[in-house]
């Protein structure tokens, strides 16, 4: 029997197992334990949550390998970690630690202003952010086995997450309704690889699992993204910047399961303590936005 590891189907397969779940940003093993107990389907190990990266400024890099290793030791669920856009050596180091997914993330300071990592070269799968279908399919073309719409990380404002998800789903609907002879020009317009666009047209959805991220702070936010059509959610600052992280994490997990059941959502949303304060994106200067990073 011949075993084949790290094929694209195997990489994509793990993301399929994460669907209907919540992936939580954690900065310590203690956070990771809280996240696992609350029912997270995976954790994202990083040095500072996006809200703190915004506040502190400076260059945001890959986390200390020691911290990532400790988190891997602490939990039995998959562990993800972030590398800077284009920083393939950070990705090599993270892969070496045994993480299950690498996030080539705009939340960290980009290491390359022109190019992303060629992700097919790695054994470990990658997740990447997108604001629209063209960006998503460029990342998949480079080897990403999972996509997350970017939203605006560290704000607690869901408006950009909604905008990016609606943009992607709207483009897919347009693609499905256009005659096949218009697809190549559409590929040119949105900068997407033609073959992946044809595959998306055939499937009626993105060819890999698509989560939402960036600004989800409440169970209602999570259920909103699910009802819009994403496969699951990432919650970053929304949990550990809230008044009662364990309770909020637990509620967001339940809300993703019962996303289309308002009666359950009403029950789940009760008495969760303070949500993260958040930043209103409409009052945010353009240069402070992270979502524009990615080429």
């Amino acid at each position, binding site marked *: *029997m*011949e*075993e*084949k*590891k*790290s*094929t694209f*189907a*195997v990489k994509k*397969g*793990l993301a*399929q*197992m*994460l*669907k*209907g*779940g919540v992936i939580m940003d954690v900065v310590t093993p203690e956070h990771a334990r809280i996240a*696992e*107990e*609350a*029912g*997270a*389907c*995976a954790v994202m190990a990083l040095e500072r949550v996006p809200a703190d990266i915004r506040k502190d400024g400076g260059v945001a890099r890959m986390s200390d390998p020691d911290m990532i290793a400790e988190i891997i030791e602490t939990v*039995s*669920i*998959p562990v993800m970690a972030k590398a800077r856009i284009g920083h393939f050596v950070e990705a090599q180091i993270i*892969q070496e630690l*045994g*993480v*299950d*997914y690498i996030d080539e993330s705009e939340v960290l300071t980009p290491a390359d202003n022109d190019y992303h990592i060629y992700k097919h070269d790695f*054994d*470990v*799968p990658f997740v990447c952010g997108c604001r629209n279908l063209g960006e998503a399919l460029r990342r998949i073309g480079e080897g990403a086995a999972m996509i997350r719409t970017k939203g605006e990380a560290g704000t607690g404002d869901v408006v950009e997450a909604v905008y990016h998800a609606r943009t992607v789903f709207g483009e897919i609907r347009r693609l499905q309704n256009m005659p096949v002879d218009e697809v190549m020009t559409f590929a040119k317009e949105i900068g997407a690889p033609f073959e992946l666009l044809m595959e998306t047209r055939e499937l009626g959805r993105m060819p890999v699992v698509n989560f939402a991220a960036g600004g989800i702070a409440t169970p209602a936010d999570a259920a909103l993204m699910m009802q819009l059509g994403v496969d699951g959610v990432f919650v970053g600052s929304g949990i550990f910047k809230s008044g009662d992280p364990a309770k909020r994490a637990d509620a967001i*997990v*339940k809300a*993703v*399961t*019962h996303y289309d*059941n308002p009666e359950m959502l009403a029950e789940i949303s009760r008495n969760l303590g303070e949500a993260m304060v958040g930043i209103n994106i409409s009052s945010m200067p353009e240069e402070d936005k992270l979502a524009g990073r990615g080429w």
Partner: protein
Amino acid sequence: MLRPYNVFNHMKIGVLALQGAFAEHIVMLSKLGVETAEVRLPAQLDDLDGLIIPGGESTTMGKLMVDFDLLEPIREFGLNHAIWGTCAGAILLSKDAHREQPLLSLMNITVQRNAFGRQKDSFEAALDVSRLYQDGDTREAFHAFFIRAPIIDSVSGNAKALISLPDGRIVAAEDGHLLATSFHPELTGDTRFHEYFLSLV
């Protein structure tokens, strides 16, 4: 024994939809002409002929089964209905996963979680599934995906190993009308395991 498609028309099979790859199972069942339902609350078990517990994270699903009072109703359902667990679902059906977590403890099997290692050790392979048929003929191999997969490290009582790797490690087992696979037939287009499960209903 595998049966022709049309015998599945009258069945209604639930897929536990707390978290994980439940949509993939529903697609496979629909191909076979079976009526399906997503199960998130105990009352949704009422009119089902069988249940599939999909792949996903067993700790997440186990916790949500406790939170939504599903553990006991599914145990009772399993006493006289077919249940199939794939990957995380197999862990939840087991008696012991060598770790403290909520389990249904319905099958006389124990499992080792993440037995092959982390994601970089996940793999796909062709499995000999001739044992699914009782005629002794060799059949076309089944293309199986092992994603951070468990192995079934022991079977006891009425449980028996169904499919093993060449090195002897058990990756599918059955115990009466209960079925566990450590791999993911729902990620292939091959409906043979789904048909086999429906033959247990």
